[in-house]
């Protein structure tokens, strides 16, 4: 199978990679691009551990072909902190114990960030339904929901 050459932008940086036409974006991120922060929990779009944004749209990278990224702007967990400055969500997750094993954390953070960009003042219900596509088996979601709401309140105050 001939590999395809793809030119895209990942976390603000121009990127090129080779992939099989049937590789998913998650395969490309974790393989040739070496960005293993996005996780594969199911490969069927049911767990959200591979969440990224494409042109600010939240998607599961396991449900997107790598070749489709040509010319688009992708953001992954690796691009969330600005240099050594954590995103407020990352900081709040740490402070509020909103992670345990950490396998869902990348996806949770990327999805939560996408929520707050659209809705800076989400209700608890809105947070819960927005994050329904991100499975967490450790926390019971309590601390995650609180961390997202606290971050939103703090970001609004700034």
């Amino acid at each position, binding site marked *: 199978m001939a590999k395809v050459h793809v030119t895209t932008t990942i976390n603000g940086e121009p990127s090129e990679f080779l992939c099989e036409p049937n590789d998913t974006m998650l395969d490309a991120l974790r393989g040739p691009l070496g960005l293993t922060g996005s996780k594969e929990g199911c490969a069927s779009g*049911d767990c959200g551990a591979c969440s990224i944004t*494409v042109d600010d*749209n*939240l*998607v599961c990278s396991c449900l*997107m072909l790598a070749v*489709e990224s040509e010319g688009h702007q992708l953001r992954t967990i690796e691009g969330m902190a600005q240099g050594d400055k954590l995103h407020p969500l990352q900081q709040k997750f740490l402070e509020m114990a909103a992670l345990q094993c950490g396998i869902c954390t990348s996806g949770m953070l990327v999805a939560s960030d996408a929520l707050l960009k659209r809705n800076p003042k989400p209700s608890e219900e809105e947070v819960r339904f927005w994050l*329904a596509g991100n499975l967490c088996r450790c926390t019971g979601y309590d601390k995650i929901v609180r961390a997202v709401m606290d971050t939103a309140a703090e970001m609004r105050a700034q």
Partner: protein
Amino acid sequence: MTELRYLAPNSLDEAIKAFVAAGSAGRILAGGTDLLVQMRAGVVKPGLIVDIKKISEMTTIEETADGGFRVGAAVSGMALHDHPRFGKVWPGVLEAVNLIGSKQVQGRASAGGNLCNGSPAGDSVPAMVAAGAIVTIQGPDGRRELPVEQVPAGPGRTNLKPGEIVVSFALPPRPKGSSDAYLRMIPRTEMDIAVVGLGVSLTLKDGVCTAARVGLGAVAPTVLLVESAARALIGSKLDDAALNAAAAACSAACRPIDDKRGTIAYRTKVAGVLLKRTTAIAAKRAEGN
């Protein structure tokens, strides 16, 4: 291993040409939220993938001169949600499209894909059926139109001819006093496939239902247009007798199966419950229009 090619043409003609040439090995890629899962599971092994998202007609939401809408088949749920007017005119269709999968899936999945996947449980289909959507299809022999309920042929099958692609959904303009709603039953609050899904579109004049359509999903090999339920509603003030009759009509229309998602008895009963609830929501919305 089979060779796979990926194409992302800019025009529909190009897409159809390639799709026809690929024959049964061709697959259309819109959001890919079903196709990629099927590929990963080894259920389908396409030789050609035609990505239609670069074709502007298929990714555009157009408000037509008569006040209706033309929604490109590859418009994502999130894009439809973000349209300033669509959800005000067709709240039921929007809530149905927005129930397809998670927010992540919403960023990709489309009503066109949901329809062509051929699942009787696709959320957008009963709402589109209730809405009276007309589907524009293009193929090697040109364009044709079909009422949406005539597209599915059975689980995983459609009435599209070889080489045909669903281009868009046309939704009619709304008379005063009209609205729609969609409800589905799932065991969890999110992330499940509908056990029963039901869309109602209706028009009220002075409290009397003057027009109604009911679409019912996940209870038969294809999504059903339940005309008997609509007849029970039309001419009534949506009183208990009319609602009971319409609910009974929905239950009677069910031809469900027992499977891992629900039982025959459960689905049959729930269809009636959802008819009442969905009608109440649509009526409340219609009163404000």
